[in-house]
C-alpha cells in the first residue's frame, strides 16, 4: 500500500529540483515522500522562465551537467504520464546577439564548441532571418539549436504526478523542522509541524531556503538567495521565435556582485506573452518591487526588439534563486550526517539542470556509476560548508 510503508527518502521541497529527484528515485524503485511547506511548484519554480540552456555556460562542470541534463530531459519527458505530458516543451533554440564588438561572443562560442556545444556563428542577415524583428544594431549572432524551454510549473507538477502514479506520496502544507538521528548519528526521520516522519534518508531540495533548512538539520551549507525579476507582456501574435539574449548575459551569470545586474533575455511563450528577463540582485529575501529593476529590463528589451516599446507589460514576477558562493550546484550526500542529502544551488539554471540532478542523486543513492562526474558538486567543498 503506497504511503503506508516507511519511505526510503523524504524529499523536502516540491519545486522542480525536488520533483525531479523524487521522480528519478521513484523510477528506480525507491519509495519517496515529498513534503512542502506550501504546495507543489509554489516557490522558485513558479517564478522562473523555464530555461533549458546550454548557450549561457562557459566550459566547465556546469556546462557538462547542462549538456547531460539536456539529453536527460528527453528521457524524463518520455516517462511522464500521458494525461500530464504536455508541459509546453519547445526545442526552439537560442539566439545570442552582440550589438557591439563581435569578437568576444565569437571567442566564447568557439570555446563552447570545443566543449561539445552546437554553437553556430551567424551573420546579422542570418540573425534577421531567424528573428525578423531584431534591432538592426546586431553585429554578430550565435545560434544554439539545443536551447529549449518548458513551462516549469507544468513540468514540476507532471513529475510529481508520475511520482504519485508509482506509489510515492506528495504532501502539501507540511513544514520540515529538523532531522531525527539514531544514536550513531544516522538520519532516521524528519521532524515536521505535522509530526515525525520515519525514513531512511532526507533530501534537502529547499532551493533558496536550503541554507536555513540545512542549519535546522544540523548540517549547515552555504546557499544564498539571489533575487530575479521578469516582465510579462500582453499576449502577442508570433513575434519572437527563439530564446534571444544579449551577449552580456554570459557575464552576469557567474558574477557575485551584490548590486543590480540585468541582461536581456526575451522569449515568447505558447500563450502569446513575451517574457523579459532577467535581473539578479543579492538583497536577501526582500520581495518588494523595484522600479529601477523594471526600468532596466524594459530598456534593454526595447533595445533588442524595438517593437516591444509600444507593447504593454501586464505583469511582473520575481523569485529567489539559490546559489552557492562558487556558483556551482550542490548535489550529493552530506558527509557529516549519514542519510542527509542535498540538491540545491542551481541558481537560475535549475529547470534545465533538474533531470540530471535527479539522476545523479539516484545513482549516488543506489551506488550506481554516475553519468556525470559528481565531484565538482559534492557537498564538502570549502565554498559550501559553512564553518
Amino acid at each position, binding site marked *: 500500500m503506497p504511503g503506508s510503508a516507511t519511505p526510503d527518502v523524504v524529499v523536502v521541497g516540491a519545486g522542480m529540483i525536488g520533483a525531479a529527484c523524487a521522480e528519478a528515485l521513484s523510477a528506480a524503485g525507491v519509495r519517496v515522500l515529498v513534503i512542502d511547506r506550501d504546495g507543489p*511548484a509554489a516557490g522558485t519554480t513558479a517564478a522562473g522562465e523555464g530555461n533549458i540552456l546550454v548557450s549561457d555556460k562557459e566550459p566547465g562542470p556546469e556546462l557538462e551537467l547542462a549538456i547531460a541534463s539536456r539529453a536527460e530531459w528527453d528521457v524524463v519527458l518520455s516517462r511522464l504520464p500521458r494525461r*500530464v505530458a504536455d508541459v509546453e516543451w519547445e526545442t526552439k533554440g537560442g539566439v545570442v546577439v552582440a550589438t557591439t564588438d563581435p569578437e568576444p561572443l565569437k571567442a566564447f562560442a568557439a570555446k563552447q564548441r570545443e566543449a561539445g556545444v552546437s554553437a553556430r556563428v551567424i551573420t546579422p542577415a542570418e540573425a534577421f532571418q531567424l528573428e525578423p524583428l531584431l534591432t538592426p544594431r546586431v553585429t554578430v549572432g550565435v545560434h544554439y539549436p539545443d536551447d529549449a524551454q518548458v513551462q516549469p510549473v507544468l513540468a514540476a507538477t507532471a513529475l510529481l*504526478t508520475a511520482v*504519485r502514479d508509482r506509489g510515492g506520496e506528495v504532501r502539501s502544507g507540511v513544514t520540515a523542522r529538523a532531522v531525527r538521528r539514531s544514536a550513531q548519528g544516522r538520519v532516521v526521520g524528519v521532524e515536521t509541524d505535522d509530526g515525525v516522519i520515519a525514513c531512511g534518508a532526507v533530501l534537502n531540495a529547499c532551493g533558496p531556503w536550503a541554507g536555513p533548512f540545512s542549519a535546522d538539520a544540523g548540517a549547515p551549507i552555504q546557499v544564498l538567495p539571489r533575487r530575479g525579476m521578469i516582465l510579462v507582456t500582453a499576449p502577442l*501574435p508570433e513575434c519572437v521565435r527563439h530564446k534571444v539574449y544579449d551577449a552580456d548575459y554570459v557575464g552576469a551569470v557567474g558574477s557575485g556582485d551584490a548590486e543590480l545586474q540585468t541582461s536581456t533575455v526575451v522569449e515568447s511563450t505558447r500563450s*502569446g506573452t513575451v517574457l523579459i528577463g532577467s535581473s539578479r540582485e543579492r538583497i536577501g529575501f526582500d520581495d518588494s518591487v523595484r522600479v529601477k529593476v523594471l526600468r532596466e529590463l*524594459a530598456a534593454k528589451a526595447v533595445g533588442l526588439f524595438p517593437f516591444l516599446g509600444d507593447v504593454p507589460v501586464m505583469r511582473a514576477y520575481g523569485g529567489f534563486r539559490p546559489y552557492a558562493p562558487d556558483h556551482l550546484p550542490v548535489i550529493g550526500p552530506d558527509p557529516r550526517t549519514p542519510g542527509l542529502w542535498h540538491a540545491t544551488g542551481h541558481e537560475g539554471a535549475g529547470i534545465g539542470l533538474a533531470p540530471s540532478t535527479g539522476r545523479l542523486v539516484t545513482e549516488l543513492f543506489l551506488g550506481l556509476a554516475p553519468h556525470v562526474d559528481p565531484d565538482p558538486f559534492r557537498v564538502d567543498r570549502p565554498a559550501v560548508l559553512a564553518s
Partner: protein
Amino acid sequence: MTAYLRPRDGDPADLGTPTPVEITVDVEPLTAHAGQTVAAALLSTGRDTWRTTRAAARPRGIFCGIGACQDCLVIVNGTPDIRACQRTVQAGDAVATQLGAVLPTSTQPPNADAAGSATPPPTGSAGPASSHSTSNRRPQVADVVVVGAGPAGVAAALAAADGGARVVLIDAARAVGGQFNRQLPVEFGARRAGRLQHGWKGFVGRRDRVAGHERITQLAESSVWAIEGLRLWVQKGPADSVGREVFAVDAKALVLATGAYDRVLPFPGWDLPGVYTAGAAQALAKGQRISVGRRVVVAGTGPFLLPVAESLVGVGAEVVELLEANTLRTVRRGWLTDPLVAPGKFRESLGYGALLAKHRIPLRHGQTVVAAHGTDHVEAVTVARLDDGWRPIAGSERRIEVDAVCLGFGFTAQLELAVSARCNLTTGPDGGPAVVVDANQETTTPGVFAAGELTGIGGADLAAAEGRVAGAAAARQVAVQEDVESVQKGRRFAAVLARAYPVRDGWREWSKPDTVVCRCEEVTRAEVEAAAAERGVQDGRALKLSSRAGLGLCQGRVCSRTVGALVGSPESTAPESSMKRPIAVPVRLRDLAEVQEDL
C-alpha cells in the same frame, strides 16, 4: 446590435448640442461626439463587439465598463490593447477591430504632445505633471497622496487638505466622482446633470471644493501602476496610450481609496456579447447616455441593482425583470438582524418601489439567470428559481427574450495597491477580501491608510465617512467624532447588507464543465478542475500557472474568487497571491524604459 444612444430629446439631463468629432472605425468615417468614450461611440452605432479572443475567436465588447476586466480592447491609431471604455475619442482617431492578439503598428501616437489636451487642466497648484524632458528628475513630494477620487477619496482629500496637508489626488478618470458620482463629460453640456444623480448637490459642493482647494493637486487620467514603500509610480495621459508620462510621487502618508468592481458568477453564455456587469450598464447610462439594450434583465443580489434599473429606465430601456437571487426570507431576516440600521434604508427602498411600480418592473426574489442564449449576441436567457443556498430548483426554468443582461453579485475590492503596500488583509463582511484598518483607517503598514470599499463592501456613505477619518488621520489631525460614529454606523449597515444579500455556494452549480471561467485566457471550468485534480495544486501561483486561469490581462480580477471557490474551500475568498499585482495596470514598455527619475 441592440445598444443605442439615448435620444437627446426629453433627456432629463438636458444635454447641449453635441460637438462632432470625426474619427474612423475600420477605415469607415464616423462622427462621434466630443466627450464620448470609444466604446460609447461604437455602441451608438449599434455595434457592441470590436474584438475577438485569441484562442476561440469569440466576439467581445464591453463587460465591466469601468476599466477592470480588459475585455473591451480595441486598436486606436495602430496601438492595440486600449480599453474602449476608458479612452475618450479625439479628432482623427483611427479605431480598428482587434482580432486576437495584435502587434502595434505605430511608433508614436499622432498627437503625442497634445496627449491630454482635450481634458480639463488639472486644478490647484503646479503638480507633478510637468516637463517630460528633464533627466535625473527628483520625485515629487506631497504630504498626503490619495489614490481614487470616488466618495472615499474625495472625502479623504478634502479632510487632509482642510487639516493643512498638501494633497495630491490621483484618479484614472477625467473627472472626480468615481463610479458612484459618475459625471457626464463636460463636453455633453448637460444643464441638469443632477437629475441623474443621488445626492448631487452635496457632491457638487465637494467636487468644486476639490477643484478650488489651494492645497489639492488633482491628477486626472492618471493611474498608479506601482508602489515602492510610500513612493507611488504614476502614468498620466489618455487611457492605455503610448507616450504617457511616467513619474514618481513621494508621499508622507498615503490614502488608498481604490474602490471595487462588480462580482459576476459564471454560467453558460455569460461571456456572450450583451452580457454586462450591472456597473457597466450604469456607467454607460449615467456617464455616456448609452443603453446596453432595449429589453434588459437585471440579475444578481443587493440593493445596488435598484439604481442600475433606474439608470436603465433613464435611458429608455425596458427592464423586463429585476431578479434578486436571495429569497425574500433571506433578505427580510438579514435586515431584521439589526433593527437600528434598517429604518433609513427602508425609506430609500420605498422610493425604488415607486419606481418599479411606475415602470411595471417585476422584482422577483429567489430567481436568477442561469444561462444566456444566442450565437453572436444574447437573444434570450434561462431564469431559474433558487433555493436558499442558491441551487437552481429543477423544473423551475423559464426562458425570456432579452437583448441585454446586467449582472451584479456584490463587489470585489481593488486590492492590488494595498497588497503591494504590504497591508494585511482580512475577510470583509461579504466574505470577500478586505484591508485591515484601525480606528483611524490606518492599515498595518504605517503611513498607509485605506478607505471605502477596500476595507469591506459597505456603500458610498460609509466610504465617505471612512475617507473623512482617513484624510484627517493622514494629515495628522484628530478625526471629527461625528465621522468616527458614522463609520461605526456604516459598518453595522455593511454587516446587515451582507446578511441580507449573501452570495451562497449554490452558484457553483450554474456553470457546466465547458463554461469559460477565466474570460481573458478562455479557461473552462473543467480545465481548472483538471489542473487542481491531476497536478495536485490547490491555489495560488501554481494553480494559475498550470491552468492559466487568472494569467490574462485582467490579472485575475474577474475570475480569481470564482476559481478559488471552484477548486478550494467553500469560502469564496480568493487567495492573497491572486491579488498580488506588482504592476497594477499595464504600462507600455517604452514609457517604463524612459522613466526619468534618478533612482
